[in-house]
């Protein structure tokens, strides 16, 4: 999205309820800033994130999609994030294979105690996506404003 001639990326962050969403809350508790372009969607576990959601976000105008889950081994559901890790490794590799910028997707493990990491991750991700510019390769022209 262009705001006053400046590109502001739209970032969808899927956060697992137990670690990363809490980590994001902690970033808030600690008043750690990160860009407002990041919008969080709460999911019970990172393994709830269907590749279709990620593509859907790009279709609807997202410029970057990030999944945050508990650190491997810490999954509230024991093993959900392990599956996430495999699924996303394969999916992201495929997107890269299709020539879609790999910087637009990311998986990051953020615990409930890592408010600072959450904020830092988001700052970094937004910065990287901003540098890439608008998502052109997975856009749906019908959804353009």
């Amino acid at each position: 999205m262009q705001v006053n001639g400046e590109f502001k990326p739209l970032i969808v962050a899927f956060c697992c309820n137990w670690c990363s969403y809490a980590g994001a809350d902690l970033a808030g508790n600690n008043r750690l800033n990160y860009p407002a372009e990041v919008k969080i969607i709460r999911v019970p576990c990172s393994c709830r994130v269907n590749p279709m959601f990620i593509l859907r976000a790009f279709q609807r105008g997202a410029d970057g999609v990030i999944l945050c889950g508990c650190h491997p081994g810490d999954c509230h559901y024991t093993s959900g994030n392990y599956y996430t890790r495999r699924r996303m490794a394969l999916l992201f590799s495929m997107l890269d294979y299709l020539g879609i910028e790999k910087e637009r997707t990311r998986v990051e493990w953020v615990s409930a105690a890592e408010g600072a990491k959450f904020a830092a991750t988001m700052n970094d991700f937004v910065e990287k996506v901003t540098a890439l510019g608008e998502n052109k390769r997975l856009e749906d022209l019908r959804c353009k404003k």
Partner: protein
Amino acid sequence: MRKISLDKLNQLFAEIASKNSLYIPVDTAAGAKYEKYDGTQTMSDALNTTRSAKDFFFPQTENLVDFKVEGKNIEIKEPVNEYEDFVIFGARACDVKSFEILDRVFLADPVDNFYKNRREHGVVVSMACTKPAETCFCGTFGIDAAAPAGDIVCHKTADAVYFDAKTDKGAKLLESLNALTEDTDSAAVDAQTAQTREVLKKLPLAGLDASAFGADKTMEFFNRPEWQTISESCLGCGTCTFVCPTCQCYDIKDFNTGNEVKRYRCWDSCMYSDFTKMAHGNIRNSQVERFRQRFMHKLVYYPTNNEGIFGCVGCGRCMAKCPVNMNIVKVMRKLGGNK
């Protein structure tokens, strides 16, 4: 009749393209396809394009209308379509015939204006066939591949292309190209036509006979037990319908972009399991019923409603593209007594 030497053909394309959008068949890795002429392409010699030419008038998807919904209110935003004049160059006899078949559907009352507008803005320049393929059987439906219909009919020989305008629209276009073409007699064309007709007679499917089918034979064919066995191999994909020049089933769907609702029309296939699924159930639940519908439509229902004209033009695309090689020829052989 006008002619142009083959080496000047691209000049002619450039001339047409300077005023109208010009589409010519171009060779690609996936077979020939129509491309908008941009001065770089050369015309394909392939017999036919992989996809049919129906897209020009009945595209796979088209936006019908947009709605803006706000609270309880709806705003209708009709698309303001600027239809540009365009020229299709090199359509074969079968595809040109398919336009007539589609016309009888879309231009029948109530007229489909999307189709009508495109039809009015398009000039069809057809190309006579010289080397029909083994899968061709247009003759079965009374189509002469050597002498197609069209606004302008072309014949391509070893060194020249001959033009014969058949309609006012065609004449107007041909006249605008007078500077590039020269007047000629029809001798070369006649010779080619005669030669092609000889080839057509020898095609493997030349003897395929459709006379067993036709108008008012619904009850004769509908309950034939053979439908069960021949439909057995059908996978229920839509390949045949999508490459078919005369299939015109469509669906109307809404797409909510988040800001507005786009209502679009897209191709649908009577081979799909949920094609006839509506709120109150599905009337064609099994593949055999759907399979029967497609072929009955082409061979019986359409002729019934259209003075005996068949809904198939024998282009052979379905023969080439069916994943399991099931096609209308096999149906006609099985049910129509063709051996």
